[in-house]
C-alpha cells in the first residue's frame, strides 16, 4: 500500500526530482502510519494483497473483455430499427463471502452495459437487464468464478 501511495504521488507530480521524492517519502510515510493506526490496514494484509496481483490483473482483463462484448450487444440493440428488447428484472443469490467481493461483483455487473444492479441486500442481487439474453447465466458468470478464486487464495 505504501508503494501504491508513492506511485500515485509520482504520477500526480509528473516528474521525478529529489525534492519531490523526499516530500513524497515523508508524506506517504505519515499517511501509511495513519492508515495502519486508524483504518485497519497492516503490513500482513498488504503482503497477502501482493500475492494476489496476478489474479487482480486477470480480473481486470476479463472485465474489459466483458465490457467490450456487452457494449457491442447494446450498440446492436440501440441501432436496430425496432429496438427489439425486453427489459426484465432478475434476482439471484451469490455464495461470495466477503463484502468487498460482493460489492466488486455488483460494480462489475453495473459496469457492463445491458445489466445493472439496483439492489444488493445480504447475498441477494436485484439486476435490471435491457434484454432477456443478458440475464442468462448471470448468477454463475466469469466474474463470480474469478472472485471466488480471489477469495480462496487468501
Amino acid at each position, binding site marked *: 500500500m505504501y508503494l501504491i501511495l508513492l506511485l*500515485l504521488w*509520482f*504520477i*500526480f507530480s*509528473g*516528474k521525478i526530482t529529489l525534492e519531490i521524492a523526499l516530500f513524497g517519502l515523508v508524506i506517504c510515510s505519515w499517511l501509511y502510519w495513519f492508515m495502519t493506526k486508524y483504518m485497519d490496514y497492516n503490513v500482513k494484509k498488504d503482503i497477502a494483497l501482493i500475492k494476489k496481483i496476478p489474479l487482480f490483473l486477470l480480473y481486470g482483463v476479463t472485465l*474489459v473483455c466483458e*465490457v*467490450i462484448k456487452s*457494449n457491442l450487444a*447494446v*450498440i446492436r440493440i*440501440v*441501432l436496430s430499427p425496432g*429496438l427489439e*428488447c425486453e*427489459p426484465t*428484472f432478475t434476482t439471484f443469490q451469490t455464495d461470495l463471502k466477503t463484502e468487498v467481493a460482493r460489492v466488486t461483483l*455488483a*460494480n462489475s455487473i*453495473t*459496469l*457492463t*452495459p*445491458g*445489466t*445493472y*444492479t*439496483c*439492489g444488493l441486500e445480504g447475498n441477494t442481487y*436485484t439486476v*435490471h437487464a*435491457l434484454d432477456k439474453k443478458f440475464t442468462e447465466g448471470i448468477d454463475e458468470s466469469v466474474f463470480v468464478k474469478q472472485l471466488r478464486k480471489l477469495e480462496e487464495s487468501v
Partner: protein
Amino acid sequence: MREIIAAVFIIAGMLVFVVALLGIYRLKYVMNRIHAAALGDTMGLGLVTIGLMILGKDVFHIAKYILIILFFWMSSPIASHMIGKVEMLTNKDYDERVHGK
C-alpha cells in the same frame, strides 16, 4: 502514423458517444436509458483515452490516463446504482410504465 492511429481510436470513441446519445433518446423509461448511457461511460471513454494515450508524451501522461479510467470505472457504477435504486423504490407500477407505452 501515430497520430492516425490515435485519431482512429478517438473518432471511434466519439462514435460510441453518439450511439449512446441516440440510445438515450430512442429508449423509453429511465431504467432502459441508463443502459444506453453506460455505453459512453465504458467504451466511449475507454476508446478516447486509449487514443490520447497513444498521443501521450511520456510515461506519466499514460499513467494518468490509466488512472482516469480506473477511477471513473470505480465511481460511475455507483451513480447508476443509486439512480436505479431510487427509481425502483419510488416507482411501484414498473410493468405499467414499461409496457404501457
